[in-house]
């Protein structure tokens, strides 16, 4: 008697768990799936039942979003900014993390502490001073070249992204570098390799797993970022990144309802991150336990 009572309570508990888990999964999956579904609907279909299946595959939405709403151009900008920022970040952060974690020198403790402190500085606090600094810089350049080029410049945006990602990246890479044995370098030095060769040929290849983690996390944050992008690429007619363009589309949608275009734009922003996520989800969820924190 006791036994059956317990097992039925057990079953009830199990059922409850599954219901809770499935409910949460549904609340996440449905909105995302709904966007994909809405992106192939014709504009007239949005005034009916929002749950209705699309009548057909209306690809024109994507063509409009890509061309008329300039999402294609913004996509190219986003790809360029993200790739450039990742490149700059790796070139700058890898050697810095290496010497900061494996060499004894004067001021090392101070530099490590400074970069650690940088983890607490959020970019959104400092976006205004960065903007004003670039405004002043442009004014200065105008005096010399008759033209400023610091604002509305994707390269400068990429540099700012890379710079603000340095504390987290150096923290993560240093953590890995400091676990390696010093024998590797000593062996390389005995073989006559210089400091630079040893670092590039011996140490960096070993750090590949954490380099991949760094690339993944920063790709997501650069690709999705929009406050800095919106501020530094402020020319209304100039280039934008994808999230900023999308935000503009959302605001425009309130006056002239172009639902189809909007959802097609949403798909364009989401798709690269979703595809990447599906490919590397194991790495990403493992990598985060290694990073442990995020701004």
């Amino acid at each position, binding site marked *: 008697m006791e036994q059956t009572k317990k097992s039925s309570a057990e079953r009830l*508990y199990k059922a409850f*768990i*599954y219901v*809770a*888990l499935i409910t949460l*999964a549904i609340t*996440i999956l449905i*909105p*995302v799936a*709904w966007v994909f579904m*809405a992106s192939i609907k014709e504009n007239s279909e*949005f005034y009916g039942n*929002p*749950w209705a299946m699309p009548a057909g595959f209306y690809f024109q939405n994507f063509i409009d979003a890509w061309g008329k709403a300039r999402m294609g151009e913004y996509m190219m900008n986003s790809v360029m900014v993200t790739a450039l920022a990742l490149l700059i970040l790796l*070139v*700058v952060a890898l*050697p*810095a993390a*290496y*010497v*900061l974690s494996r060499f004894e*020198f004067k001021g090392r403790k101070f530099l490590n502490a400074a970069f650690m402190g940088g983890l*607490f*500085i*959020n970019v*959104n606090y*400092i*976006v*205004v*001073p960065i903007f*004003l600094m670039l405004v*002043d810089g442009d004014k200065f350049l105008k005096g010399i070249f008759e033209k400023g080029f610091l604002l509305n410049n994707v390269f400068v945006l990429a540099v*700012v992204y*890379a*710079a*603000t990602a*340095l*504390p987290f990246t150096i923290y993560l890479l240093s953590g890995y570098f400091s676990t390696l044995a010093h024998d590797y370098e000593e062996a390389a030095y005995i073989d006559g390799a*210089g*400091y*630079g060769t040893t670092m590039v040929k011996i140490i960096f290849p070993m750090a590949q797993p954490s380099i991949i983690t760094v690339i993944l996390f920063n790709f*997501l944050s650069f*690709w*999705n970022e*929009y*406050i800095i992008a919106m501020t530094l690429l402020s020319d209304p007619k100039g280039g934008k990144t994808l*999230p*900023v363009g999308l*935000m503009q589309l*959302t605001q425009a949608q309130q006056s002239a309802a172009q639902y189809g275009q909007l959802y097609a734009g*949403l798909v364009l922003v*989401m798709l690269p991150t979703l595809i990447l996520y599906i490919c590397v989800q194991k790495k*990403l*969820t*493992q990598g*985060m*336990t290694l990073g*442990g924190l*995020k*701004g």
Partner: protein
Amino acid sequence: MKKRSGRNGFIFLCAAPAVILFTVFMIIPTINVFRMSLFKRSAYSTTEDFVGLENFTRLMSDANFIRSMQNTILLIVVVTIVTFAFALVFAAILTREKIKGQNFFRIIFYIPNILSVVVISAIFSAIYDTNNGTLNSLLSLFSGETVAILWKGENMVMPSLIIAMVWQAIGYYMVMYMASMASIPQSLYESAGLDGAGRITQFFQITLPLIWTNIRTTLTFFIISTINMAFLFVKAMTSGGPNGASEVALSYMYKQAYTNSSYGYGMAIGALVFIFSFGLSALVNAVTKREPLEF
């Protein structure tokens, strides 16, 4: 001697680019936030007038600012509690119980974290839409009459924001806690089970105390990040409206700096929120201090 100088040169070459970028784009702007808060600087003029603490005294009597701080605190408290409660409970369930499709749930729950806040805001704007939104249509379906709740109206806008923010954050923290809970030895639960401790007792007596250090660290970072995420969501979803009902501290700062071109005033807000977030983190850190337990 030769090798020695080569070594120093190498260290310098490796560290210098990172230090320069970090100084120019993070340290100097951070100092500037505090410096500028004592000045008056408007629009595109480079002249600054020293006004001392006037910006701060004006803030104390600015009803809009006080409202934005209240909203920020509300978001910090509610979003933190709800997110942590859900994340901890779901993480405990997924690590402790034998659940079919455990991996599947983990993959799904992490999805919101890889989406841009702009995308999430657009999705939730579509859900909250008064006339064509999925939420109202769903409620109409269940209640049998037409529901037209203004989810982004003055009364409901904060709860709507909270839901979107919790939706975004749960997965990340869940995956993180799952990783730390997985390292708790199974034998502890087995012996507790033999002593007659139920699941809930086990959760509070074993799981929580053993990952307490992790919870503390994440809590501190979560508070800082919520101040920041609140800004991202508000900027993309409501622009602080209607009538400033959803304004948060950083969005008000941004508005003052750009829309209103009062950079000094904006930076006073930035400086205050900066100090506030550190103070709060320190407070939480002190309050949650416990003797660390070992397995």
